[in-house]
């Protein structure tokens, strides 16, 4: 019986371990994480059933439109959003910008997204994420990229998709690529795994873990272009653990209604009759962009490696 020896337990408490970092992502599963730019948006997201929010100054669609260098958001904004809601708050830092990450950790955000949506700060190295107590989520386009980020300490992965387009095609491509990469490992012997590790540029130990689990060793969400309940359900049926919705909600005609519908669609992703009901009468979705219409050097997914 433990009564009375609580303080003894307390002495052994361990903070910031990989288990608690990856564990929060486990708690987010089956949920929707929404981009918000004001405390008001954050409340709408929470009221709609979001399992977390991403605090940022501009949604990706506006970053894309306005151009210029996109950086970490002002701490005042992040703080106001943290005060407005009780669900976890995430924030973005630039790829490789470990000082922005230190600032976000000091603010006490619950997760950091080292994100290609912002302008990269380092063209060679991503952040060494192991020393941080706060967990990181990173984007990927295929299995090799996902495992490189995990080896750097990412406790959660998301597909990159093509943020700010309202076009789900790239998220689908990336989710399928991760799935195919993992399927390919099944049945490989050790020598073949070593060879595959070389080809995709990832540590063989992580390939072995994927082979054993039949999935990524951390939680994997879809992101980049999800704009409708059906988009969210599509990604869930492709096997992701949850979805990020960026511009898709607050660039639409009726954000609260759409947000609620996407939350329901993420839980009932395999029940088309529920999807039909929640998809009805949502007003206009965000306008959206065709991927080939975007100049190659403006594609966000190509940032990071």
């Amino acid at each position, binding site marked *: *019986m*433990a*009564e*009375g*020896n*609580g*303080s003894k*337990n*307390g002495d*052994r*408490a*361990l*903070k*910031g*371990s990989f*288990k*608690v*970092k990856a*564990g*929060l992502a*486990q*708690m*987010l*599963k*089956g*949920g929707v994480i929404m981009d918000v730019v004001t405390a008001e948006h954050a409340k709408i997201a*929470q*009221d*709609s*059933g*979001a*399992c*977390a929010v991403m605090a940022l100054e501009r949604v990706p669609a506006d970053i894309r439109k306005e151009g210029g260098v996109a950086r970490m958001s002002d701490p005042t904004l992040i703080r106001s959003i943290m005060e407005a809601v*009780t*669900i*976890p708050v995430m924030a973005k830092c630039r790829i490789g910008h470990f000082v922005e990450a230190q600032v976000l*950790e000091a603010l*006490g*955000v*619950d*997760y950091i997204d080292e994100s290609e949506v912002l302008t990269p700060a380092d063209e060679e190295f991503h952040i060494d994420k192991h020393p941080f*107590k*706060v*967990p990181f989520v990173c984007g990927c386009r295929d299995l090799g990229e996902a495992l490189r980020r995990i080896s750097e300490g990412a406790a959660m992965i998301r597909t990159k998709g093509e943020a700010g387009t309202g076009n789900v095609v790239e998220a689908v491509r990336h989710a399928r690529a991760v799935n195919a990469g993992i399927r390919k490992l099944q049945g490989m012997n050790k020598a073949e795994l070593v060879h595959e590790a070389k080809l995709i540029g990832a540590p063989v130990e992580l390939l072995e873990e994927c082979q054993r689990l039949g999935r990524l060793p951390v939680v994997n969400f879809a992101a980049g272009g999800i704009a409708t309940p059906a988009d969210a359900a599509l990604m869930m049926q492709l096997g992701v653990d949850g979805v990020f919705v960026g511009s898709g909600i607050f660039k639409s005609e009726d954000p609260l209604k759409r947000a*609620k519908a996407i*939350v*329901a669609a*993420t*839980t*009932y992703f395999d029940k088309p009759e529920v999807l039909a009901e929640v998809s009805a009468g949502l007003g206009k979705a965000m306008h959206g962009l065709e991927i080939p219409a975007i100049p190659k050097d403006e594609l966000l997914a190509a940032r990071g490696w």
Partner: protein
Amino acid sequence: MQGAFAEHIRALEACGARTRVVRTAEDLEGLDGIVLPGGESTTMTMLMERVGLYGPLRSAIGAGLPTLATCAGMIVLARELSDGMPAQQGMGLLDVAVRRNGYGRQVDSFEADLDIEGLAGKSFPGVFIRSPLVESTGDVKIIATHEGRAVAVRQGRIVALCFHPELTKDLRLHREFVRMAAAAAS
């Protein structure tokens, strides 16, 4: 609904139980026990209300359905709730007062070894993630504490934990729960 259900399913099946994901009131039919997993209590409560699961679930647990509640699950069952969303309430089935995220934000999440009453052998690995803090307890039996606060309680056929056994390889608590559910069913 939302949260770490897959890990509970893995743990329960490793203990020999058959499992089913409960997302609608119809899914409650014929259960011997239910797990309310960790996740976001606001999201879960809203989804349950939206699909008409909240009331039937509350009745079933109130009528004695064996229940294992972890983290957000404990919040959903609690009598009294602080620092929740405005108007967020517990089901009032578990006589505890809890503070949401009472141990702090994610950077304060931690692991600690726990001694749990009724579990033979070594201490249990407690994984606490944005965990609720039990501020006071009424008519419940405290089965584990950390720093003087209750972190595991039992009331009738409800076992509620602030931590996440499903994120560890230690199956003892799930095995106990399966045994309790089987005993209640026979």
